[in-house]
């Protein structure tokens, strides 16, 4: 009997496992499911609110709002300024965006729609004087201006963005990682995709760089961008590069452990990132669900370069979409326009950057998968 036991244990001894990596994967999965469960509860609550709101409006206004409410002959200034919508029924639906508004159908984050996080970030940065507003193309300015204000919060903690053209902000190590991960061409393209984030407006806090690219497995990099990387950050970076050389996720499925950030969780749809401290943020629309290319276009728009007629056209359509949403909420017309814009953005991307590695991934497929 002991012989069987010993031989069995001897045989199994040859198996070497990455216990630490597995522990990270387990924690990441459990945390993501907890987020999803909470999001499900919030979604139900929101749905209840929408139904209750529709009922109340049907009482006060005679019927629930439906269909596009941009009426022929409506005053243009009214459409241009979402705040004039405040006294109209559509406001409620604007305040409670539903998943169908988002580029990502399963997204139940507080704000829906592609690039809206970037829009708000740009506005805020412009307001703080840290962003060259005047250099932005007028079409981009109009787009930002069409977005109503809202406050991004997670767990009640405010955060701040700064959006900028980033090459000078990226350390050689980060650039090398981007190149090794995304390929040289996409790395070059990623100059338009990178957003630096400084949380809480605290000058001493760690900056992060987010490289949104659709190459590889719904890849998001969350990397320290500060020129003086902490020892831990350097370790993480080295680990990230090491993991990347395998060309696969350590667990074979968890994106959150890709770069070995123990406290980091990256989700396919709304990206929650925690690093060094239990603070995070949701960058809506900057996901694998179709937001990154739009965000790239926005970045191009604020970079100060001359935009092509195609780019201007797309930006103008985005403005139209924001107005449509402001006036009619989650209408079928808005959804169709959103899809149309995304198709055009994809065409724009392909024209400028070529087909990327993940073009087989459906732009509107389930998020986080």
């Amino acid at each position, binding site marked *: 009997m002991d012989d069987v036991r010993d031989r*069995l244990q001897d045989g199994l001894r040859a*198996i070497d496992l990455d216990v630490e990596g*597995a*522990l990270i994967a387990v924690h990441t999965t459990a945390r993501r*499911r907890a987020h999803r469960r909470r999001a499900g509860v919030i979604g139900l609550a929101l749905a209840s609110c929408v139904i209750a709101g529709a009922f109340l409006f049907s009482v006060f206004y005679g019927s629930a709002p439906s269909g596009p409410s941009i009426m022929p002959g409506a005053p243009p200034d009214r459409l241009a300024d979402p705040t004039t919508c405040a006294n109209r029924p559509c406001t409620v639906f604007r305040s409670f965006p539903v998943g169908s508004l988002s580029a990502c159908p399963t997204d139940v984050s507080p704000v829906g729609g592609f690039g809206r996080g970037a829009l708000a970030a740009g506005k805020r940065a412009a307001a703080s004087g840290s962003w060259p507003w005047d250099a932005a193309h007028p079409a981009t300015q109009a787009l930002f201006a069409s977005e109503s204000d809202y406050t991004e919060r997670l767990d009640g903690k405010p955060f701040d963005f700064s959006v900028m053209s980033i090459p000078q902000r990226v350390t050689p190590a980060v650039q090398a990682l981007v190149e090794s991960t995304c390929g040289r061409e996409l790395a070059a393209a990623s100059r338009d995709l990178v957003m630096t984030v400084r949380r809480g407006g605290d000058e001493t806090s760690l900056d992060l760089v987010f490289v949104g690219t659709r190459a590889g497995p719904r890849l998001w990099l969350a990397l320290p961008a500060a020129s003086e990387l902490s020892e831990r950050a350097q370790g993480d970076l080295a680990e990230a590069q090491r993991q990347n050389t395998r060309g696969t996720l350590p667990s074979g499925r968890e994106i959150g452990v890709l770069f070995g950030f123990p406290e980091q969780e990256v989700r396919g749809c709304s990206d929650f990132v925690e690093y060094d401290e239990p603070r995070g943020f949701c960058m809506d629309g900057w996901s694998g669900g179709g937001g990154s290319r739009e965000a790239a276009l926005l970045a191009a728009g604020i970079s100060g370069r001359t935009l092509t007629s195609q780019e201007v056209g797309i930006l103008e359509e985005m403005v139209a979409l924001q107005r449509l949403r402001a006036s009619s909420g989650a209408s079928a017309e808005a959804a169709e326009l959103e899809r149309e814009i995304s198709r055009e953005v994809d065409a724009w991307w392909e024209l400028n950057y070529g087909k990327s590695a993940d073009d087989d991934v459906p732009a509107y497929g389930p998020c986080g998968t």
Partner: protein
Amino acid sequence: MVSVPTFDVFFEREYERLVKAVYVMTSSITEAEDVAQEAFVRCLERWERVRQMDSPIGYVFRTAMNLNRKRIRSILRRRDPEPQGGAFVDGMHAVDERIDIVRLVRDLPFAQREALVLTFVLGMTTDEVAAILGIAPGSVRGRIHRARQTLQGREA
């Protein structure tokens, strides 16, 4: 009751043993890792309750076995002849080839294999195994005895 301070400590102590146990029950180290990790995720979600149990690892093992059964049922439903098990070849294939005893154990009937793995790989006592499997300690001993006979017969 076993003293289990935190989930992380518990995981680090038991993960490797569990993967190896599941590996004997399945046929691929990748599958074993997946099943074991999923079992630990469920354990983590119920950790406050699981840590109070007499045998937390027993709970995780049962969970892993249930997950494995579900996986097999799913495979059979899809009528996929060799999806992840059977002749599946992964990075551990070379190691697997050297582990004759593992392959012999894997050919045992499920009930015997289960008792053998719990006892020999997870190092549980007969009473603990009996409690986990919901059978009498004598039945555990019987299964292990029959497993040994089968193994000896096949090696002879």
